[in-house]
């Protein structure tokens, strides 16, 4: 629940990140190798927010970095890992196995039903029965009940209203109208379900000139961050940075080596511009050579 009518929400990354509070339920947009709001997550790590509860479908680098950066308490994503490119998510796996982070793994559709209930403004939505899955044991808030119409067993998924959705867009205006990019995954639903949405965008313009995917009144802050999804992709602007991920995976083998990664890419650069100097952005832009 949140409506943001203000005409100018453009702010610095630092300022926008302060809108995220300790313990907040956060929904990162994108999925797996694309369009995750990584520049924003680096800023959250620098600010040292604590105990975030992440929600989302299948994600990878975003959650693993946030967990490795020490800002996450609970992960309610349905999958956290790389794919057949780099395999398991090293920081996430370690933190869960050591009991430092709670994995409240969800199913994609039950997660979406929770967000959808929040988006619709109803206290729950009825999901077809999946009581045979042990995922139910990780979610005591899911209640079995009898359908008032048919009598069949259904699962009540309570409204899941993130405190904040953080979505990386291709284009936004200062009010917050935003054009995301394929694949859209669950971004539009996340914006609608959340108390507020923060848009990081490759470019902020005066007039969009096209229909936004996210209407401005859902958006509390707009930040211009070119290459803001790096090392994940934002098609067609730039691709997934496999070299960077390879370095990340290598440095994630222990908390000590991961500190090197954080020093080099998160704590080291004075600003996002400085960060970009560490990256071969030209190579990433010229991906479409097939």
């Amino acid at each position, binding site marked *: 629940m949140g409506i943001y009518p203000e005409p100018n929400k453009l702010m610095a990354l630092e300022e926008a990140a302060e809108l995220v509070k300790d313990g907040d339920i956060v929904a990162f947009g994108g*999925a797996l*190798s694309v369009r995750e709001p990584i520049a924003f997550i680096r800023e959250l790590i620098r600010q040292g927010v604590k105990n975030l509860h992440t929600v989302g479908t299948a994600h990878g680098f975003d959650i693993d970095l946030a967990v490795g950066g020490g800002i996450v308490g609970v992960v309610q994503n*349905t999958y956290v890992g790389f794919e057949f490119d780099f395999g398991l998510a090293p920081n996430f796996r370690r933190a869960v196995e050591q009991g430092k982070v709670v994995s409240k793994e*969800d199913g994609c559709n039950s997660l979406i039903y929770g967000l959808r209930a929040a988006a619709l403004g109803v206290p729950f939505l009825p999901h077809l029965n999946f009581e045979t899955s042990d995922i139910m044991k990780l979610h005591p808030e899911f209640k079995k009940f009898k359908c008032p119409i048919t009598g069949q067993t259904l699962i009540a998924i309570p409204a899941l209203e993130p405190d904040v959705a953080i979505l990386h867009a291709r284009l936004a205006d200062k009010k917050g109208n935003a054009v995301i990019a394929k694949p859209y*995954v*669950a971004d539009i639903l996340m914006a609608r379900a959340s108390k507020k949405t923060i848009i990081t965008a490759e470019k902020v313009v005066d007039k969009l000139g096209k229909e936004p995917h996210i209407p401005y009144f859902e958006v509390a802050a707009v930040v211009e961050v070119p290459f803001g999804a790096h090392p994940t992709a934002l098609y067609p602007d730039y691709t997934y940075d496999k070299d960077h991920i390879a370095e990340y995976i290598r440095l994630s083998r222990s908390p000590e080596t991961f500190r090197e990664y954080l020093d080099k890419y998160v704590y080291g650069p004075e600003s996002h511009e400085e960060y970009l100097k560490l990256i071969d952005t030209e190579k990433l832009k010229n991906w479409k050579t097939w």
Partner: protein
Amino acid sequence: MEYTIDELMAVTMARLIKDGDVVFHGVASPLPMVAARLAKLTHAPNSIYFAGTGGGMNPEPPFMATMTQDAVLFEGAEAILTVDYIFNLAARGEMDVMFFSGGQIDKYGNLNNTLIGSIDDIKVKLPGGAGGANLSCEVNKFIIWTTRHRKRVSSSGREIYTLVEKVDFITSTGFYEGGDSRERLGIHGGGPYKTVTELGVFGFDEETKIMKLETIHPDVTVDDIIENTMFKPIIPDDVEVTAPPTEDELEILREKVDPTGVRKVEFPKDELKRKFEL
């Protein structure tokens, strides 16, 4: 003409798709991706293929990607759908075929993608089941695949099976506790249909719902199956050899569907050395 295990599995999985089927797969699914696309270019031109949660509808990628959100999976797509919209097809009984894998797979086709150990003592956190927990209780049928049927030995000397007697955690529901246990609870969807591994193909016994060997791959014996499977599968008297790919299928697979060989990334290196004569 020779072919390899990745090709045999891709073709075998593709043939399980019928013309007109609605086909979907999740994250980390190179073989399903290749199989869905191959089916569409061969015997199932009217199948409806959603290329993972990226939502590309019937894309025509010039090659395949390791990552399910890769831009190549939108090339030529007729539409890009949001993930919530695609999931609704399953609950409506309109998703005909999905593909699921698992770190552990039990004799009833229940899958574990969540954890090794127990909820209170997690030895290994697996990446997660993504849509499986819900969709396995909704889709008309799902196909289980694994390229890790062969048991291996852990660093501590323990034998590790993928096909186990009982999964540590049921992420996706197969035939649950066997018999009519799934149906009795009012779980929707038809449950698991086949299991395709690097050793052979299983169906499920109609009554007990226990995995039942159907075919073995050309270089595999029934003893290999028994040795690498922790549970006791049903083994009929006559087990045939898995039907080989046709030359057409191989050509389309190699030239049009997956020229860069993405299908191979799922396999341990040694498996890829297996060659079969057509």
